[in-house]
């Protein structure tokens, strides 16, 4: 009996010791969550190993835990107060909500942050990520600009000497390509396809980049009001509506089955640079050639052609006990060498100014001419406006998009007006 008591005391002491040790270890260890993309894991591991060999603190790295979406996992971790110290891959639109809730570290309060960011990013990007309270809560990290991918048969088989980069040219291409290949009385070849499902984020791949292109990077929300009730948004709705009305686009969810770009049932698509590897990997004939060009614009468009950047950023949560140390680590990921590694390992573009002309990236870009097109586009990209209810804003636009563009139930003017009114009501609440 006496022995049992001794053993119990020793076990309890051991337990206390291990808890204390683990607490001390945790204070010196920063937890870093990356996305669970294979290439990003490789990229992160490279930098974490290097830091752990040389740094005073340690980084414990893990891909974000599995969940329906990374946004859902992050939300659960915020609610459960189990957030990592650093999270890389935060969608820009989520940052405002977390910043307003006070769960993010204002990075501009950290030593060296402001100077570093000014050196790395354009003034436009810095303005875009600055919150309404004047602080910066996110490190602009990487972008995947949305552009038009096209099958080069467009030039060779259909005789287009120029790429369809205006609304009219694209509609003409639609007319030329539309075909009933199996003679069943139904069109089964289209100029392009974009997701018809009324999900808010699907507008990042059709309406929103087209709107940014037409409006030279205009706002959806400005001064807490809808700023899209204008001829640019109406023009985009009209252009897309015509594509569906004339059956140049299919209303069916083509994305549910095979990739119709690869099967050559569609000849263009609005997508990001990730499509390069995908098409190269799955193309069905070796001589399948494709390229990229900017989003379509109205005929009278002047100036550069903007698009949606699909930016993913890095944040430090307020559960981090060493935010300065966390920033010091992040700096290694996003300095020129870090950005070069990001490009080479993941094929994704860093959110850095002059990437197209910076010497350090030239070798990679020259070897990957398709990525170079995106690097050129990177000079004219935008994320989303800082707005806590940006998801609802896109959802409202999606509802009107469906009613007007897909089902022709409203005129573009009425649909945009209704969307703007609904957004104004939402922002007033």
């Amino acid at each position: 009996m006496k022995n049992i008591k001794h053993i119990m005391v020793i076990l309890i002491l051991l337990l206390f010791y291990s808890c204390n040790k683990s607490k001390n270890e945790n204070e010196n260890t920063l937890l870093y969550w990356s996305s669970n993309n294979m290439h990003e894991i490789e990229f992160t591991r490279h930098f974490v190993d290097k830091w752990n060999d040389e740094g005073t603190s340690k980084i414990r790295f893990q891909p974000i835990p599995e969940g329906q979406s990374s946004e859902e996992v992050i939300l659960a971790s915020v609610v459960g107060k189990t957030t990592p110290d650093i999270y890389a891959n935060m969608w820009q639109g989520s940052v405002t909500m977390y910043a307003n809730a006070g769960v993010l570290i204002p990075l501009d309060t950290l030593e060296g942050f402001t100077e570093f960011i000014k050196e790395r990013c354009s003034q436009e990007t810095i303005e875009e990520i600055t919150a309404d309270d004047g602080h910066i809560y996110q490190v602009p990290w990487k972008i995947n600009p949305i552009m038009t991918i096209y099958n080069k048969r467009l030039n060779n088989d259909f005789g287009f000497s120029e790429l369809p980069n205006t609304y009219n040219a694209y509609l003409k291409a639609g007319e030329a390509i539309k075909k009933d290949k199996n003679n069943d009385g139904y069109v089964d070849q289209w100029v392009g396809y974009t997701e018809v499902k009324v999900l808010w984020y699907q507008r990042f791949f059709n309406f929103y980049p087209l709107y940014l292109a037409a409006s030279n990077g205009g706002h959806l929300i400005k001064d807490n009001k809808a700023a899209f009730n204008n001829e640019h948004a109406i023009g985009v709705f009209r252009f897309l509506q015509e594509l569906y009305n004339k059956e140049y686009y299919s209303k069916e969810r083509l994305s549910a089955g095979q990739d119709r770009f690869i099967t050559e049932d569609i000849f263009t698509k609005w997508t990001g640079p990730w499509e390069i590897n995908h098409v190269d990997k799955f193309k069905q004939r070796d001589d399948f050639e494709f390229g990229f060009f900017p989003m379509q614009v109205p005929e009278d468009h002047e100036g550069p052609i903007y698009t949606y950047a699909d930016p993913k950023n890095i944040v430090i949560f307020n559960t981090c006990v060493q935010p300065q140390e966390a920033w010091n680590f992040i700096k290694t990921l996003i300095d020129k060498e870090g950005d070069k590694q990001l490009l080479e390992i993941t094929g994704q573009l860093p959110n850095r100014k002059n990437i197209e002309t910076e010497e350090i990236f030239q070798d990679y870009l020259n070897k990957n001419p398709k990525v170079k097109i995106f690097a050129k586009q990177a000079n004219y990209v935008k994320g989303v406006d800082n707005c806590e209810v940006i998801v609802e804003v896109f959802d409202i636009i999606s509802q009107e998009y469906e009613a007007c563009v897909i089902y022709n139930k409203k005129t573009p003017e009425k649909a945009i007006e209704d969307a703007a009114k609904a957004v104004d009501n939402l922002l007033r609440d």
Partner: protein
Amino acid sequence: MKRKWLPYILVSPYILHFIVFVAFPVLFSLVLTFHKWNIISPMEYTGFSNYTKMFNDRMFWKSLVNTFKFLIIHIPLQIIISLALAEFLNQNIKLKGFFRAAFFLPVIVSGVVVTILWQQLFGYDSGLFNRMLVAIGLGKVGWLIDPNIAMGSIALMATWKNVGLYVILFLVGLQTVPPHYYEAASIEGASHWQKFRKITLPMINPTIFMVVILSTIGGFSLFIEPYIMTGGGPLSSTMSSVLYVYKQAFEYFHMGYSVTLGFFFAMLILAVVVIQKKYIERGED
């Protein structure tokens, strides 16, 4: 002393479970209906504004109408098909066990798997149904892209998925009908249809009612099918009430408003159960 506490100790796991997973969430939700809360910021008391918003929310009423549309299509279809199949299985046929298993199989298959499979079948250009229609010279149907048809398509799929369960229930009901009723009717010269209408239907009336109630409750919780197949579209024609509650909670983080809607649906289901209870009591009298 030991004996006095023993029953409490034995029921304590359930009591604990009840408090943590039922009582607390329900009470917390009730409190939440008077607040605005996005999960990560502090709650803000808003009085009855969530209730006012609910009564003025057009999409909420549309989702309710959609749910009733689903029930109106789904329940009769389910009863007719499952009763017909049960009647078929109640005959002296070969491979009875095989058919029973075959009809029940969709019930045990994951709802997500079934939904994805049917999404392919319903495809406009490449779906099997439309290919068959075109092959026999008919036109294509916009199963999931026509706002007037989409909810019907979902009801059709849900019926296929659940019919096996109700076949079993009807089969049990049919087997409780005393055979001598049919024998007496046969001697009197009654036709099959007359026997079915005058004997079978009245005798299995409680089963029919149970199926109606179970289908209604199941119908109110319509979620997976529109969530995966249509996202509530086209033109919000498949936006079910539960899908709308989900969107409010997990897309917009309007927790207070979503639980207000949740409470309203709970009251609706409660009303249905009360009607059921009264009907059964009247039947017993």
